[in-house]
């Protein structure tokens, strides 16, 4: 019975900050008159050690049913008082705090009005306290598994590092294999090391790891739950080739009647509809490209050439995609970025006949397994005598990318070096306005490139369209404006456009699915990007070039940074506390109308269709109470903020 409950009231004088501003005796007298209040004590500093000791001993001695504390900065002080209650054997949720300082004595000038306000606030607190109920601090395990999304080196290294820490990792990539732009490159700044030689062992390690499960190609279609307990739906798409069985011997490739441009080689060469995504791709083996295979395209045939040719019976036309749900505690979203489309910068020159390439396209010429088997050959099969490498192609301008990607200058310089090594007599021009070569090695790398024979051509970016390209019988004319404001031209055999990076197309869907913020340029953004990779939704981290364009090293660092945040949070054996002030649904009153399901910002409510009632997912509820006010049947309440408690508080304030 509420009328039997004994309430002890403790008033903190806050060393005069409360007691000097009002008539403390009058407050004590008024609140003592409340029929449930059995004891009112004042103390000069209740939140100090002496105050805590007093409270603890009084609770032990008098065993009140409810405690009301009046004083200052109550949200900050509450945890300390809760500890006192617990140490005295009392449920900490039977404590009601009333702010008499920031909300009363410090903001009210007149002592009489301050006294009356304090009395009303305390009366509200006492009335609310009478309706408090003991609540439990419950915990669930923080799942140490991690979902990593993306092809980028950030995703690859994140997955590997997590595996080293024995975490269960689900690596989902939109592409047929992780690898991203790293595996399309041949050299890596600053030491011009072989890129595939760095990528291949990482991919092999991923493929062989017992801790990493690769879902490629696949997509994440839903992310429910909260940090520690995410339920993530992954849809895998069929590869049509059993990667365990495929050896890969190429017989299917030879048998396939289809020939389409190979996007991995930037369409500089063709491939069959059954193919190996790239040398060293994982999981091993081939994959059938549904869009172009004559069995699956718009007018399907019953072609079985590849299956007939396969000595391992690895081809499986009947394979279908699967949908599964995994539980993980954290997710790292690190999709690859995409190079800006060079066709959009100089559409006329990019006619497929003229020797105008993007930097990544041109880099394929240096790859032994590339379209020219490692020879720098222009479209007519000859070596170039002169090449202009144009920086800032489609960057830092209104019509294309407004920003500097911070990595294309280094890639442009890198290509000069590779070109001078492969074709020493070639005239190589570096056409730039500003040279963005940050870090301890950048400047030396640039100087060294010019010393090796690359000619710096410094033009004015702010003038007109930056660069005009005109296709001539002999090659391409590059026109611009020099630093003196005069027109300048270069006649070359080939032009390389160093393009920037933009967020991958998949980022649109990811932002929706994972609740991620994007900046005005479309890149994923962490909540505090300077200090953390964490996004606003707890337990989710972003990394990689779609979270901001950058070179391989910075990208990798971001992935590792996200791993650090995950590992320090998701410690095996550490539990996550359920929100004690979560919603509670009354099955008897619930009509199963689903309004709360739509209202909940955290998707924390399911509907039990068999029983026709709403069901709270305790571990997901964040305790906002939005469902309580939405429920038309008054079937939901919020622990610690029940309607009865709020009504009682308001009644107490109004009645004084």
């Amino acid at each position, binding site marked *: 019975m509420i009328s039997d409950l004994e309430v002890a009231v403790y008033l903190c004088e806050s060393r005069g900050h409360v007691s000097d501003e009002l008539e403390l005796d009058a407050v004590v007298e008024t609140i003592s008159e409340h029929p449930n209040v059995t004891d009112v004590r004042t103390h000069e500093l209740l939140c100090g050690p002496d105050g805590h000791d007093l409270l603890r001993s009084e609770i032990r001695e008098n065993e009140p049913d409810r405690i009301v504390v009046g004083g200052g900065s109550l949200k900050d002080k509450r945890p300390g008082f809760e500890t006192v209650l617990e140490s005295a054997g009392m449920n900490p949720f039977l404590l009601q705090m009333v*702010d008499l300082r*920031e909300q009363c004595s410090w903001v009210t000038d007149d002592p009489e009005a301050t006294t009356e306000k304090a009395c009303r606030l305390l009366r509200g607190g006492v009335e609310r306290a009478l309706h408090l109920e003991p609540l439990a601090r419950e915990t669930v395990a923080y799942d140490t598994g991690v979902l990593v999304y993306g092809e980028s080196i950030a995703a690859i290294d994140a997955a590997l590092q997590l595996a080293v820490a024995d975490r269960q990792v689900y690596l989902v990539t939109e592409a047929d294999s992780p690898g991203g732009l790293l595996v399309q490159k041949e050299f890596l700044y600053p030491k011009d090391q072989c890129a595939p030689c760095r990528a291949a062992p990482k991919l092999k390690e991923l493929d062989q790891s017992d801790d990493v499960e690769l879902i490629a190609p696949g997509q994440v279609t839903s992310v429910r739950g909260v940090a520690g307990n995410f339920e993530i739906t992954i849809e895998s798409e069929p590869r049509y080739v059993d990667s365990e069985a495929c050896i890969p011997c190429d017989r299917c490739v030879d048998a396939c009647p289809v020939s389409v441009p190979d996007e991995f080689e930037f369409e500089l060469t063709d491939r069959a509809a059954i193919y190996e995504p790239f040398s060293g791709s994982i999981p091993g083996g081939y994959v059938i490209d549904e869009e172009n295979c004559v069995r699956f395209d718009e007018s399907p045939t019953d072609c079985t050439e590849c299956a007939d040719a396969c000595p391992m019976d690895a081809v499986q036309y009947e394979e279908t995609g699967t949908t599964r749900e995994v539980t993980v505690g954290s997710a790292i979203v690190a999709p690859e970025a995409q190079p800006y489309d060079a066709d959009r910068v100089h559409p006329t020159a990019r006619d497929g006949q003229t020797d105008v390439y993007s930097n990544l396209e041109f880099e394929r010429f240096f790859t032994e397994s590339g379209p020219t088997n490692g020879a720098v050959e222009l479209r007519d099969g000859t070596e170039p005598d002169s090449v202009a490498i144009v920086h800032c192609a489609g960057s830092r301008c209104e019509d294309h990318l407004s920003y500097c990607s911070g990595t294309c200058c280094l890639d442009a310089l890198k290509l000069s070096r590779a070109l001078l090594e492969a074709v020493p007599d070639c005239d190589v021009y570096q056409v730039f306005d500003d040279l963005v070569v940050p870090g301890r090695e950048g400047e030396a790398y640039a100087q060294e490139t010019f010393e090796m024979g690359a000619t710096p051509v410094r033009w004015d970016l702010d003038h007109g369209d930056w660069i005009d390209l005109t296709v001539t019988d002999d090659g391409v004319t590059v026109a611009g404006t020099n630093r003196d404001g005069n027109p300048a031209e270069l006649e070359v055999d080939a032009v390389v456009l160093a393009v920037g990076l933009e967020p991958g197309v998949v980022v649109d869907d990811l932002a929706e699915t994972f609740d991620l913020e994007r900046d005005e340029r479309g890149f994923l953004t962490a909540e505090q990007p300077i200090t953390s990779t964490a996004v606003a939704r707890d337990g989710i981290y972003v990394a990689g070039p779609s979270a901001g364009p950058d070179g391989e090293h910075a990208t990798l660092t971001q992935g590792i940074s996200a791993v650090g945040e995950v590992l320090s949070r998701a410690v095996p054996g550490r539990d996550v506390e359920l929100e004690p002030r979560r919603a509670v649904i009354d099955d008897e009153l619930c009509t199963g109308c689903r309004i709360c399901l739509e209202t909940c*910002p955290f998707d924390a409510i399911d509907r039990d269709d068999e029983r026709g009632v709403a069901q709270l997912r305790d571990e997901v509820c964040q*305790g906002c109470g*939005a469902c309580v*006010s939405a429920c038309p049947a008054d079937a939901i309440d919020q622990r610690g*903020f029940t309607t009865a408690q709020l009504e009682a508080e*308001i009644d107490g304030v109004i009645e004084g």
Partner: protein
Amino acid sequence: MTDVLEDPDRETLESVIESEATDPATEEWTPLVVAFLCNWCSYEGAQTAGGARKTVPANVFPVRVMCSGRVDYDLVAKTLTDGADGILVLGCHEGDCHYKTGNYLTRKRHALFTAVLQGLGVHEDRVRLDWVSADEGERYATVTREMAARVRELGPLADGNSGPTTEVTADGD
């Protein structure tokens, strides 16, 4: 909110409006305003106002909830019925809700409730929704002072006409 307004056994907003009330001309009358404050922004904003020793009207009484989305307008109606003369509902600025979308829910509910008030002939200014962030102590003080002043202008809710309405809806005449 409909059950409060329609429950025949309860004192309703309508009955309060029509009841005999204190005559502000002859008796000392202090309006009473209940301010629902969300835990993360507005309550913190009120704490900031306190820390900065801003002046907040003594007749504005804070009631903390975790989110403005918890503010049931059923409870708002009941609070007016029980004797408050004005209600402030303060939440995080749009886009800043700690629970992502709670304040948008409140905005929708508030718009509906305003229409109900107009239908009853209660001035819509008696229930004000606004946003106060954790560092907006000055804003908290200003909003509460404006509200206290406005409610004083409108007079006691239980005054038979509840103050002049500025807008009359189709069903409010």
